[in-house]
């Protein structure tokens, strides 16, 4: 029994001596994080209706809203929001013959899908009326260096206000197109 106790004591002493040889009583860690340029987007209006007064062939109008989050590089950074018509207008339902609005091939020269932009938050909205395209992206907003979303966590907001020519040449019916937004930050 005495040998067991002695052995235990020896083990404990050894352990304590071993612990005393590992590390120190205090330590520090330097935690580093790299905050990079970043951007995110929510299209609030996933479905946008374009409507007309129905008299005098006034143009069809409607609005799409989105919220965005952006952080651009402190020095030399930039960013943008753009849009592109990724699916041109096509008629829906039965008996369609697609004689209606078209971004790629408007039925009458001068027919177009145009939009204006407005922002509530960081960034510069596109200036004046823009003509949407199926072949290239067009501007919604631009961001300069050290741009940061003002509203958090909801995000800053932007609106694209659409105008579609009301051409008598369009056949009656329902038509849809898909617009895709892109956001970037550097």
């Amino acid at each position: 029994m005495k040998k067991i106790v002695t052995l235990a004591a020896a083990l404990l002493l050894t352990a304590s001596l071993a612990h005393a040889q590992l590390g120190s009583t205090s330590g520090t860690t330097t935690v580093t994080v790299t905050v990079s340029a970043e951007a995110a987007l929510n299209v609030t209006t996933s479905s946008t209706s374009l409507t007309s007064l129905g008299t005098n062939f006034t143009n069809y109008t409607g609005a799409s809203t989105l919220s965005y989050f952006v952080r651009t590089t402190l020095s030399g950074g930039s960013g943008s929001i753009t849009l592109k018509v990724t699916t041109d207008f096509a008629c829906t339902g039965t008996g369609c013959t697609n004689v209606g609005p078209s971004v790629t091939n408007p039925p009458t020269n001068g027919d177009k899908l145009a939009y204006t932009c407005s922002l509530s938050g960081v960034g510069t909205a596109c200036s004046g009326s823009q003509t949407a395209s199926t072949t290239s992206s067009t501007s919604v907003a631009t961001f300069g260096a050290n741009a940061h979303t003002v509203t958090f966590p909801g995000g800053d907001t932007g609106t694209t206000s659409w105008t579609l020519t009301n051409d008598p040449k369009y056949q009656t019916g329902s038509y849809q197109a898909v617009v895709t937004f892109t956001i970037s930050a550097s």
Partner: protein
Amino acid sequence: MKKILALTALALLLAASSALAQLGQAPPYTTTLSVTIAPEIAFSVDASTTLTSAGRFADFLGTTNFTYFVRTTKVGGGGTINLYVSTDFSSCTGTGPCVGTPKDSETLKYTCSVVAPGNNGTATGCNAGTPAAVGSANATPVVSAFSADARSLKAGNTGTIAWDLSNSPMYQTGSPTATVTYTISAT
């Protein structure tokens, strides 16, 4: 101690990643634009037309020009343009032409000419020498019928109304006027 630090760091990383996942949707960021193209019609017409006589009591003649813009429903659609005298000649109270109560059996007649819708369809004009009448309930056709899927040019298509007013020696001299109102419809 190391375990505490490691767990704390791991917790912070998890919290941060969870917070980032809540901002923004996953791409693509799209909106679907929807538009319903409905039948519609619009019309413009000369604001004034002067009727003149060649003399020797030839009828008073004049032409009113109009432009129409129309889209009728692809299947089963139609439309019309009508006119009526909304304000009769001021000479009705005197001795001059009057459509509602003729003084000398005079009539105000008209003949229409209309260009077909430039993008599709047909427009049927009025019968030659249609007598104009007073009041909306007595409206008479300018374009008696647009066909289904009638679609004008974006710039519009044109027509004319050729007026013919009897020239009675009974009329007192003067410059009486009447107002003609047009009604348009498209389905």
